[in-house]
């Protein structure tokens, strides 16, 4: 959820709650005041009636000057001074319905006779008032919330602008390109601090990355010579006539390890080269032919493992790619598919203008599927250096091709999707 929506959501929730509580309170207060007012009014009327009645000897000729309903009934004898004030309902013949009334009744002596005097006051007006108040309040609430919403959006957009700018800068930050992010100064101190810290952080990351890259590169280059020396000395040693089989065995192990190291080195150098964008000149290549050419090189290895080769190549698929990278890609993928195939297994290659799919038979991996492209992840293949597929992935990233791995029907499947802009029409090529 977006920042603006989150703050707005909270503001609106709080505003709604406050409005509800205050309208409830307000309505209650208005109603209560009104209610008291009615009772007071009735008591005042009672006093007025008492005053008027007490001046009389009997009830003949009494003319009350209050607009409400008054009932006067004679009593046997005077029983109480209590005044009762209750809310009740009563049939109203004009409205033809039962409506709420408040009743005030008391006993009074007029001359010698006792009378019960009852005052009736209709309450329904107050209810109308109540709903009127509620409706007005609701309108006010909607107004306030709408204003709140739009104002908040507008303010937030203004206030958070530097933040969003920094965010988009970070989003487009690419370590490989080695560009710095430029943050704009804002009038808000916190954002400036954030930008300064972000600049420091990204600069540090970029510097570290650069150092790491240089380290890998230098390390691989600098180890080449000692490796060459070790190997040359071992080769000289192996020529000696005086060695017994045990000594030769030791030399062989040492040679094997030197070879592993130097293979690893070569792969690391290759990875660094691709990262350093040393293979940046692309040209249109006929992938269909290129695959056939590579397969020829592997012919012996395919036949010795008695692999079933299933080729399904669309002719004349032209891809814009650096020739070195294309060679590295195909050679690594194919050797991988042959090396880790089963005897009599299947090697299947499908090529269309949008994708290349290479699949081979084999037991499932002991590592997670998506780790297969990570450096030095080699599952249970102790002989492998574990960089071949990392190189493949790097090449694909570099050419903005998408590569993914799946294991289906006892087969390892590598699929490369060519981006549309890399595929070239035959005429253009």
């Amino acid at each position, binding site marked *: 959820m977006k920042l603006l929506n989150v703050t707005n959501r909270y503001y609106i929730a709080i505003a709604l709650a406050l409005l509800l509580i205050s309208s409830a309170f307000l309505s209650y207060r208005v109603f209560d005041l009104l209610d008291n007012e009615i009772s007071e009014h009735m008591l005042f009327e009672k006093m007025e009636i008492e005053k008027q009645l007490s001046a009389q000897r009997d009830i003949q000729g009494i003319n009350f000057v209050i607009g409400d309903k008054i009932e006067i009934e004679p009593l046997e004898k005077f029983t109480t001074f209590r005044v009762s004030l209750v809310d009740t309902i009563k049939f109203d013949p004009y409205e033809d319905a039962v409506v709420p009334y408040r009743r005030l009744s008391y006993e009074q002596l007029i001359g010698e006779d006792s009378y019960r005097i009852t005052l009736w006051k209709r309450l329904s007006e107050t209810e109308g008032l109540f709903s009127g108040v509620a409706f007005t309040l609701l309108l006010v609430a909607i107004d306030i919330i709408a204003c709140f919403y739009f104002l908040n959006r507008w303010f937030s957009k203004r206030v958070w602008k530097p933040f969003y700018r920094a965010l988009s800068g970070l989003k487009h930050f690419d370590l490989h390109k080695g560009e710095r992010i430029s943050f704009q100064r804002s009038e808000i101190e916190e954002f400036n601090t954030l930008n300064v810290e972000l600049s420091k952080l990204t600069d540090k990351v970029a510097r570290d990355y650069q150092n790491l890259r240089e380290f890998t590169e230098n390390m691989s*280059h600098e180890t080449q*010579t000692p*490796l*060459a020396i070790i190997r040359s000395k071992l080769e*000289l040693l*192996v020529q000696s006539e005086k060695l017994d089989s045990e000594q*030769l*065995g030791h030399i062989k192990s040492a040679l094997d390890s030197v070879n592993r190291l130097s293979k690893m080195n070569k792969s690391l150098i290759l990875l660094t080269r691709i990262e350093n964008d040393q293979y940046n000149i692309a040209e249109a290549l006929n992938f269909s032919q290129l695959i056939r050419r590579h397969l020829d090189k592997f012919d012996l290895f395919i036949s*010795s493992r008695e692999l079933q080769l299933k080729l399904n190549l669309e002719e004349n698929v032209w891809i814009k790619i650096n020739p*070195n990278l294309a060679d590295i890609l195909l050679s690594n993928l194919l050797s991988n598919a042959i090396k880790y195939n089963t005897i009599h297994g299947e090697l299947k290659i499908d090529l269309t203008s949008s994708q290349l799919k290479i699949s081979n038979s084999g037991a499932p991996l002991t590592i997670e599927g998506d780790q297969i492209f990570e450096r030095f992840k080699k599952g249970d293949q102790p002989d492998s250096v574990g960089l071949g597929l990392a190189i493949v992935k790097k090449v694909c990233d570099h050419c903005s091709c998408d590569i993914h791995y799946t294991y289906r029907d006892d087969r390892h499947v590598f699929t490369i999707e060519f981006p549309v802009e890399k595929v070239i029409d035959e005429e253009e090529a």
Partner: protein
Amino acid sequence: MKILIVEDEQELLQSMVSFLKGSGMTCDMATNLNDAVEKIDMSDYDCIVLDIGLPDGSGLKLIEELQKKDHQTGVVIVSARNSLEDRLTGLNIGADDYVTKPFYMPELVARIKSVFRRRSFQGQNEIIHNELKVIPDEMLMYVHEKLISLTKKEHELLLYFLSNSNKVLTKESIAEHLWGDHADMADSFDFIYSHIKNLRKKITDNGGKDYLKSIYGVGYKFSNE
């Protein structure tokens, strides 16, 4: 064969000298560009083994110097950089071959001998080893003057052995010579074994001696006797 080795790394230089001397070559050494230029001014070499990254300049300059003299010296570049551009520049400017560090010594010997053959006889020479005779550019072999055809790999293998006769060649070096970058295919050692078996059979079946000796799982040796 007189060779000049130009390499700034002392230890590697010593190894190369030892190995090349062991292969019957005469070696001069230079550890920097100046020395090397002086040496080629003073004497003629059949081949120069040249490291590109020298302390006082690029080894490619020596090739330029060499072009000024009109002679028949072959050049094999040795470089720590395996980039295609380097390789192309080196070959364009007049080098005959290119090996990348770390390389196998027998590979270097084979390259030097191949360059030497191409330079001195325009490739039309023969390699004779007792009763064996091999024509480098054709996939043919004579055993006691009897013509025997070889497969491409058998031919490459035999040439490699003959360039390094009486030397122990490790399986790795053979695999790399035959298959280059694909040498690490899991079972290539089995192929070496079967190629060697076939080659040995072709020689011995036709009255040749069994020259191919296996050396305790380390590799093979093509003996002189």
